[in-house]
Each structure stands twice: as structure tokens, then as C-alpha cells.
């Protein structure tokens, strides 16, 4: 008999699972290195990773995690072993300390409260700075932030974050007695505006790679208003002592200028993180083995990312089918059940993807697990809704006949209702698959890898070609999935039951 055959689906999914499941082989001691999704974070993490590789550790990179809280949670849960963090961020954003504490005190608090070790700082202080054009500074003789009070005519423009942070503009204005009204401006546009003399003063980071390019002058924070943002490897305390010792060698190796130069190499010269990190370690004399890390070819990387991407998408999709199809049937069978289920599934769909991913972290940590969970939740609604709608819309005459000729409820479902609903259910699964492929690109923010990795990095670096490296394969994957489902449809559904475009 022709009709939907669940066995085909199950075998198909098992094969896929086996195909992609065995990717993680066991091996020597592996250190998981994380990073946030901005330039400097990537560089420092790559330096940490390469140093450990040089000393014969295996390293797994979970770079480009979507923000401070995600990294910190991941470290707390043991999903990663180390990531570069800033002392100021720890004090202000994570511990929310009421007053500033010394580096040593910060270490003590982290050790005591979170069982983490903040290792020796790299040396540079990437705090906020107030920037203006070099020529203007020279012309007016501006050197310190307190000098600004003498020129009330200057135009101030700050990033929105800086305007609102309590260690940003409000405190700055109070400390230095500045009585101007700054405008909010996108950070990426502020330097350009200064170069075109549309703006005089803005906020910057000390180690920003663009500072030289735009010929900016950084004023001295003479009242020491800005907290220190000393970068250092933050590790789990239980980590192997040898690893901590090796990372300790990085302490004090990078000055402000040095870091600015490394950032500029990536942002301006478009060098890869790997190249910049290698050059730094080499010049600092930290490489002992003289071994070069074997770079994977672009195609191998693409293949690996694609497989990871498919794994995330399809495990979630299959789980979604296993849950949503039975629930769709339940919704069809029991009216009382239908409203709460449909509302709940609808509600899930309204949660923004990034937020849903973030909600998953406390429950499942970072990596593939929370990503699959989030994608699973997203795939529920299209499958559920299509299943229920398809069953509800079956010709009432057919329903009556199938009851009247003596089929039991189970037999009706299996031989009449599900086969008739199959094209619509399949369309729901297809929708969920395509949504999943798109949404899975965001999973890179929580360290799940996949085709989102180059997209996240590309966004951090404002590098379009890198973004396309992920976006194009993802789009191709989506189209291929459409095709695959069309093929599946032809296999499982008699041609005359398929909807054809109007002629």
C-alpha cells in the first residue's frame, strides 16, 4: 500500500544520526577555550589556545560566544575551561560590586564565590577613553579629560551603551564637571564623523585598532574615573595546575600599544586571528616546540561546519516531529486539549531566537545541547499546527465513512487520516527544517558551532566576506532541504494528492 511510512523516516533519521554523531573522538587532555564575540576577545583566546597547543595540549575552540554572561555561565558550568575576561567587567557586570576593588581582592572573590582563578593579567588596560582628533587636540592644547571643561563649544557624541552605563557618561560628567549635552551615535560611525569634523569628542576603547587609522588622540583620565579593564585568562580553579602555570607565562606580555597593534592587524590588515596570535607568541618567545599548528583546509572546515549545522538542525527536527505530530493528533482528538497546546506552542515561537538560546544556558550549559533544545522548541509550532490543521480539514464525508464501515480509531488514524494529512504535515516539517537551518546560525553565539561561526566572527569584525562564508552555505542548505523534502513528498504521497500550482 502506498502512503506515509514512518519506518522510512525513522531509518533515515537514524542513519543521519550515526553519520554525524560520531564526530567527537576521545583523546589526550583537552582544554576548551572560549571567547566573546569581538575582535580582541578572539585574538586573546587564540593566543591562549595556541600556547596550549604548543605545549602538547589538545584544544577545543568555542569562540564567538554571545557576550559576557554566556561566557561566564559556560565557565561556571564547566562547558569551557578558560576564556579571556576583563577585571572591570567582572567587577561591574558580573559581581556588581558596589565599589572598586583591587585586582587581588577580585581574585579572592572569584575564587571564593565561583571557584574560578583569575590568572595574571596580560598587562594592558582596555578601559574606556575619551577620544578626539589629533589635530584638534594639538590645536587647542588638550591633554587630559579635565581640559574639556574649558571648551564648552565642543560637540560630544557617545555610543548608546556609554551614555547609559553608570560607569559611562553620567559619572564622567559629574566627576569632570562637564555641562554639555552629548548626542547618541553608533560607535561604528563615530570615528568617521570625527574625521569629517561633524563631531569633536567621542568614547573609545584604549586598545581600539582603529585609533591610529583615524588619527585619534586619547585624553588622559587624570581623575582616574574609568575603572580598570585588565584582560586576563579566567579559568576554572580545578583545572590542571600545569595549564594555569603555562597561561601564567602570558602575564605582563602585552602593553596598551601592543594590543592596539594586534587589533589593527586584524581589523585593518585583515590578517587572521591565527596568524596574529602566532606572530605574537613567536615574537614573545613563548613557543617552545617550534611546531606549527596544522591549519585545516577551507573545504574541510566548511564540511565540518556543515555537518555540525545539519546535526543541530535535524536532531532538533526529528525530536520536534516525535513530539509535535502526536500532540497534533491529540489536539485533533480532544478539543479541550487543543487551546492550551496551541497557545503554548505559539508562545514559544514569539520568543526571539537569541533570548531563547540564552534561556537554555542555565539549564543546559553551552554548546550543542541548548542549541538543539532551542531549535527543537522552534520546530514544534509549524509541525503541530500543520498536523492539527491537516486532520481538521479532512473531508467530513470521508471521516463519516471511515467510522461507518467499522474502522477503529487507531485504524482510521493510520489508514485514512494520517495518509490524507501527510502532504500538509510534511509541509509543516519542511517549514520547521528551513526555519531551523536559519536559526541554527545563531547557535554559534552559544558555542554550538556550525555555519553560524563565520557569521558571528564576521559580524564582530564587520567582515562581509566572512559573513558570506557562513550565510551562503546556509542558504544553499536551506534550498537543498526544500528539494529533499519535495523528493520525499513524491516518494510518500500519491501525485494527485499533492497541491499543484494553478495553471
Amino acid at each position, binding site marked *: *500500500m*502506498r*502512503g506515509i511510512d514512518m519506518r522510512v523516516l525513522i531509518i533515515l533519521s537514524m542513519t543521519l544520526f550515526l553519520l554525524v554523531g560520531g564526530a567527537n573522538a576521545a583523546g589526550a587532555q583537552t582544554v576548551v577555550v572560549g571567547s566573546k564575540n569581538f575582535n580582541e576577545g578572539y585574538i586573546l583566546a587564540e593566543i591562549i589556545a595556541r600556547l596550549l597547543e604548543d605545549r602538547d595540549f589538545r584544544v577545543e575552540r568555542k569562540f564567538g560566544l554571545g557576550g559576557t554572561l554566556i561566557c561566564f555561565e559556560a565557565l561556571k558550568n564547566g562547558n569551557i575551561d578558560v576564556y579571556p575576561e576583563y577585571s572591570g567587567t567582572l567587577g561591574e557586570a558580573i559581581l556588581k560590586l558596589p565599589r572598586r576593588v583591587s585586582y587581588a581582592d577580585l581574585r579572592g572573590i572569584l575564587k571564593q564565590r565561583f571557584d574560578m582563578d583569575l590568572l595574571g593579567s596580560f598587562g594592558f588596560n582596555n578601559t574606556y577613553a575619551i577620544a578626539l582628533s589629533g589635530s584638534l587636540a594639538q590645536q587647542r592644547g588638550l591633554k587630559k579629560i579635565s581640559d574639556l571643561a574649558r571648551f564648552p563649544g565642543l560637540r560630544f557624541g557617545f555610543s548608546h551603551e556609554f551614555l547609559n552605563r553608570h560607569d559611562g557618561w553620567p559619572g564622567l560628567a559629574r566627576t569632570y564637571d562637564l555641562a554639555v549635552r552629548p548626542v547618541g551615535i553608533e560607535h561604528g560611525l563615530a570615528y568617521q564623523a570625527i574625521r569629517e569634523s561633524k563631531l569633536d569628542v567621542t568614547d573609545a576603547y584604549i586598545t581600539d585598532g582603529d585609533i591610529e587609522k583615524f588619527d585619534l588622540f586619547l585624553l588622559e583620565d587624570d581623575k582616574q574615573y574609568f575603572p580598570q579593564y585588565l584582560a586576563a585568562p579566567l579559568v576554572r580553579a580545578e583545572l590542571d595546575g600545569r595549564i594555569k602555570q603555562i597561561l601564567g607565562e602570558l602575564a605582563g606580555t602585552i602593553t596598551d600599544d601592543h594590543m592596539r597593534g594586534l587589533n589593527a592587524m586584524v581589523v585593518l590588515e585583515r590578517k587572521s586571528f591565527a596568524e596574529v596570535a602566532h606572530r605574537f607568541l613567536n615574537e614573545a618567545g613563548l613557543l617552545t616546540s617550534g611546531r606549527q599548528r596544522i591549519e585545516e583546509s577551507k573545504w574541510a572546515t566548511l564540511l565540518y561546519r556543515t555537518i555540525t549545522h545539519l546535526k543541530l538542525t535535524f536532531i532538533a527536527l526529528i525530536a520536534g516531529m516525535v513530539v509535535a505530530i502526536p500532540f497534533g493528533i491529540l489536539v485533533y482528538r480532544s478539543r479541550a486539549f487543543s487551546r492550551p497546546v496551541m497557545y503554548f506552542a505559539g508562545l514559544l515561537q514569539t520568543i526571539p531566537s537569541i533570548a531563547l538560546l540564552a534561556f537554555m544556558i542555565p539549564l543546559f550549559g553551552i554548546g550543542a545541547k541548548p542549541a538543539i533544545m532551542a531549535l527543537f522548541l522552534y520546530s514544534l509550532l509549524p509541525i503541530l499546527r500543520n498536523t492539527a490543521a491537516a486532520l481538521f480539514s479532512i473531508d467530513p*464525508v*470521508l471521516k*463519516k*465513512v*471511515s*467510522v*461507518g*464501515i*467499522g*474502522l*477503529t480509531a487507531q*485504524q482510521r488514524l493510520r*489508514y*485514512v487520516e494520517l*495518509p*490524507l494529512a501527510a502532504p500538509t504535515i510534511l509541509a509543516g516539517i519542511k517549514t520547521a527544517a528551513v526555519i531551523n537551518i536559519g536559526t541554527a546560525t545563531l547557535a554559534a553565539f552559544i558555542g554550538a558551532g556550525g555555519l553560524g561561526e563565520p557569521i558571528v566572527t564576521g559580524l564582530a569584525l564587520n567582515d562581509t566576506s566572512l559573513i558570506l562564508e557562513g550565510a551562503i552555505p546556509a542558504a544553499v542548505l536551506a534550498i537543498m532541504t526544500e528539494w529533499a523534502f519535495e523528493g520525499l513528498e513524491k516518494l510518500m*504521497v*500519491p501525485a*494527485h*494528492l499533492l497541491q499543484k500550482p494553478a495553471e
Partner: protein
Amino acid sequence: MSQITLENISKFYGDQQALLDIELTFTDDVTTAVVGPSGSGKSTLLQMINGLVRPNHGTVAVFGKPIDYQRLPELRLRIGYAVQGTGLFPHLTVEANITLLARLARWDPERIKARTKELMNLVSLPLSYVQRYPYELSGGEQQRVGLCRAMMLNPQIFLLDEPFGALDPMTRNEIQREFLHLQRSEARTIILVTHDLREALKLAQRLVILDRGRLVQHGTCAEILENPANGFVRSFFQSQLET
């Protein structure tokens, strides 16, 4: 003992009265036509017999026992059922439609094949149609497949709800002939709902006449034609037979 008995049956849909105080025993092994104007409760009466409709009051007894509403599928397998518009399953071939119940009953494949062939011959369906889908057949052919499906398990009771209603007069004539043929070949109790009195007189030996949910008269065709119970029956006959 009679196979089908309705005792003191009433059925309401909300305030709407569909059937009221029906007291009726169907004669075994003959064809009874249930006739009456639309809305008279013909279909509701028919669907009482296979439990698709459950009465608010009264008892329906089939095969000599009151219907056990917990075990309807078992009962329905012993009652053939065909409806207007065929109700063929569009995703199944002609053969799969006809043989579905026999396959679920785990009949021997040879027996299924033989019975299918027998039935298709009986209603003059070409055997080459087995692999076709319903949409590839004409209305009359689909109707014949519907009859075959209903007859597959050789049920002792056969319920037909306006089965030939949607056909053109030519096809209708033809299929009515097949029906008579079928009736003679295997003795069974057939209940036929129709709004067409001519069809009823042609196919049935007995008539049940309904008006607004009440049983007006029942008996053999000849009895009723000669001796209409009241003005309603007389005018119903006149209006239907004159045109």
C-alpha cells in the same frame, strides 16, 4: 428473530427534533426504502442502525441484541455502509479501497483476490481498474467501487444513504440494474435512504415513510400505494410520481 428493531426511538439535536417515538421492525432479507421529504429524519434513522447516531431515548437492536456502544467497530464490520458522493479514500487505489476491511481482518490474500474479482464482476467494473485511483474514474464507476467496498465482508445488513443521488439519469439507471442484480445474488437485509420515490419503488420491496421525524406509514410497496395512511402520504406520492 428480526435483525433490526427500533424501540421507542427519539433523537434531538438541541431543541431540534430529528426523530420522535419511532417504533419499527425491519423485515429480514428484503430491501426497505426509507423515504420522505428532506429534513424528515431519513439519514438519522439509517445512522441509528450502525451507531453513527445514538438515540436520546429508546433502544436500537441489531442482530437481535441492543447495540453495545462500547464495541461499535465490531458491529459495523458486519454492516455494509455506502453513502452519496462515494466516500472513497482518495489516497488508496480501487483495489486498496475495496479490500481495506478484508486486509485489516487478516483475510487470506487468495480469498481477498477472489472476493474482489467476484464483486467487481457483479457490478460490471473492469478488472483492469484495480490499480487506478478514484479520481481517475467516472462518478458511476466510483459508486460501484463504493458498493464493492461495502460488500467486501459479505455483511448481512447493508445500509445505503442516497447512494445514487449524485449520478446522471443514464448512469443511475445502469447502476440501479446492477443493484438489483446484486440483491438477487446474495440475500441480505438492505436499507436504502432516498428522496426519490421512483427509485424506492424500483429497488425496494418495502417502504418506510417519514415526515418531520415521525413514522407515518410502513409496509410493502403495494400496500402503501393502494392504501395510503393519510393525506400526507397521498400528496407525497402524487407530487413525486406525477412529475
